[in-house]
């Protein structure tokens, strides 16, 4: 059973149709890569899956764990087990990483998490992401470097333990060490928690560390090609032009 199923999704923003019929299934524990040139609709899909109000679903469905969440509020999707690691995480002045995480965890629970339990979870996540503990007392993303912001995204993912995570170009702007740390973090969560992931990326390098079982190529708001990791190698060799030629009728 697919935990996340996207059926013929059409999405519009600012009077322009961006997604023109996307079908995609991501099961718990599966790693998917979504690749495509700039402007093909990858980030629109990521934001739409979490219910960003600027993106209007004009037709199609998003099914998660058998429930139609197409019209659900963003926090309902998050609490159901979806997670979005943002391409450009925003800063939240005045709210520490730890306090924000505590609020987010408590949003899923009937009773607030105990201090000891929270501390233990935080320690584990901090070690996983190889960040300094003092990192968690800083205001979330406020004054963070690009690498710190991406680590903070993965730290949140580790703490919130979603079933399916969408990583929207998490590899962009990372140096090689930060990329490895982030990728290893995702891999461990995949191995330990059975995390399913949809990794949106432009580059092969992230996929050296997390090998996807499924690769999807998006062009002009549609997924035009699907396959295994061999697709990534083909893209590296040929670029998108060859695929565009092959699937010209579609796009």
């Amino acid at each position, binding site marked *: 059973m697919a935990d996340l199923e996207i059926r013929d999704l059409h999405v519009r923003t600012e009077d322009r149709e961006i997604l023109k019929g996307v079908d995609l299934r991501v099961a718990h524990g599966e790693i998917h890569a979504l690749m495509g040139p700039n402007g093909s609709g990858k980030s629109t899909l990521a934001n739409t899956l979490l219910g960003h109000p600027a993106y209007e679903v004009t037709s199609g469905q998003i099914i998660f764990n058998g429930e139609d969440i197409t019209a659900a509020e963003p926090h309902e999707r998050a609490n159901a087990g979806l997670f979005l690691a943002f391409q450009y995480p925003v800063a939240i002045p005045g709210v520490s990483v730890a306090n924000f995480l505590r609020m*987010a965890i408590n949003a899923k629970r009937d009773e607030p998490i105990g201090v000891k339990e929270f501390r233990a979870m935080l320690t584990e996540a901090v070690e996983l992401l190889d960040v300094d503990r003092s990192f968690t007392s800083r205001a979330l993303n406020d004054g963070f470097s690009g690498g710190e912001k991406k680590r903070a995204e993965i730290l949140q993912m580790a703490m919130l333990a979603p079933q399916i995570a969408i990583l929207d170009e998490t590899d962009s702007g990372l140096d090689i060490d930060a990329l490895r740390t982030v990728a290893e973090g995702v891999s461990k969560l995949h191995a330990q928690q059975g995390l399913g992931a949809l990794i949106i990326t432009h580059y092969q390098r992230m996929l050296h560390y997390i090998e996807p079982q499924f690769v999807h190529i998006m062009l002009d708001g549609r997924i035009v090609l699907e396959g295994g990791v061999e697709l990534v190698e083909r893209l590296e060799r040929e670029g998108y032009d060859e695929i565009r030629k092959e699937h010209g009728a579609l796009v």
Partner: protein
Amino acid sequence: MSEAPVRPQRREATLYHALDGAGAPAGSSLSSLREQALRVYESSELPVWRRSGFWTTSFADLDLDALEVRHHASDAGSAEGARTGSTLPALLTATVPDRPRAGRIVQLDGSVIHCELAADLREQGIVLCSLEEAAEREAKTFERWYSHRLPGDRHKLEAANSAFWTGGVFLHVPAGLRIEEPFEIVHLLGGPGVAQHARVLIVGEAQSDFRVHEYGLAEDFEGQALHTEAFELYLLDGARCRLAHFQDWGSGEVHDSCTRYVGVGRDAYCHWLPALLGGHLVHEHLELAVSEPGGDMAYRGIFFTEGEEQLDVFAVDLHETGPSGGDVHWRGAAAGQSRASMEGLIKINPGAQQSHTYLQLHTMMLSPKARIDAIPSVLVSADDVSASHGGTVGELDESLIFYMQSRGLDRPAAVRVIVEGFFEPLLSELEDEPLAELIRSRLAAKLAAANADIEAYASSR
């Protein structure tokens, strides 16, 4: 103050002016000051403040004749005692944090009803009592400092305070004493129809170090009430004080007109944070003056208006001499149909060389019908100084809200996090968690009350 009869007049100003050292003439007796103030009171109309081109704050709708000063018995038989809080009004016990304190004095309407001071502090020479008592028992200090830098005749309500004040608060901290826990001053308005003319005089002698928390509280009620206050704090050589005000007059038609003055002496320091969190119509003149060389201050402020509240704040950072330091940082938000008007003034007087100060005003609009005016002003009359200002006007950022929703917080919770985060830089430097938590909870309550407006605003954008 002139002895000549004063013709009825409406006192209106087009600009706000610093007190700039104004006060009672040296040697004035309390009775003469009351008489002079009474003449101004009788000859003037209710004040209307105009800041040209920006706002008008009018107390003309206040039915002064319908208000009365009510008196209550003290819980200790005399104004000074060491009683438990068991007989204190429920509003006080429900609001003021239950925490260690150096002392507490409570004025309900026109009377000081409770005064407590730890015995060891009394033995060390600290005096905490009603100002009426201090005028008798502490005559030397009272006469030296009473109304030293506070005028009593700029408008009818200021004059009412000078003429009619009752009860009052007097705190004298002797030289060299360091007190960790705060002295609490609580002003309670008992209900509609009340006029409370509150008066506070605090003197921190050389090298003293202490905290003062002042509360202004009222239950929610229907009808008008009035709180006027004249507050003066003098810090002598090397003294240090962390001063905070928590004001929440509830949803009644409380009119609040205050003048507060903090004088920072040689090498002295004050950290001051007024938190103005509720009042139907509030006009506050808050002046922090470095009066002698080496004085320094951190002048903070918080306001949050909602519903139909109207707030008018004039915050002055005055440098009478140099070298001196200043750092003014205010944050405010407005929701509903409320109106918040604020002028922050840096004033550096002639000769106050080597004064360095900075003023920042940050505001957040939470409703399309709310209005905030924030004017930073700088008046510099010395040439070897640095004085600058900056500010921001913000709204709720939808990208922030979506980010937090994507982590599982519902929309009201996300808005609360943003607003709390907006004020947090000032709360985290309070160095007093119980007070910071009280302010946070009051901000959250005001936000919850304004939730419908905030959502309407979001959907309209």
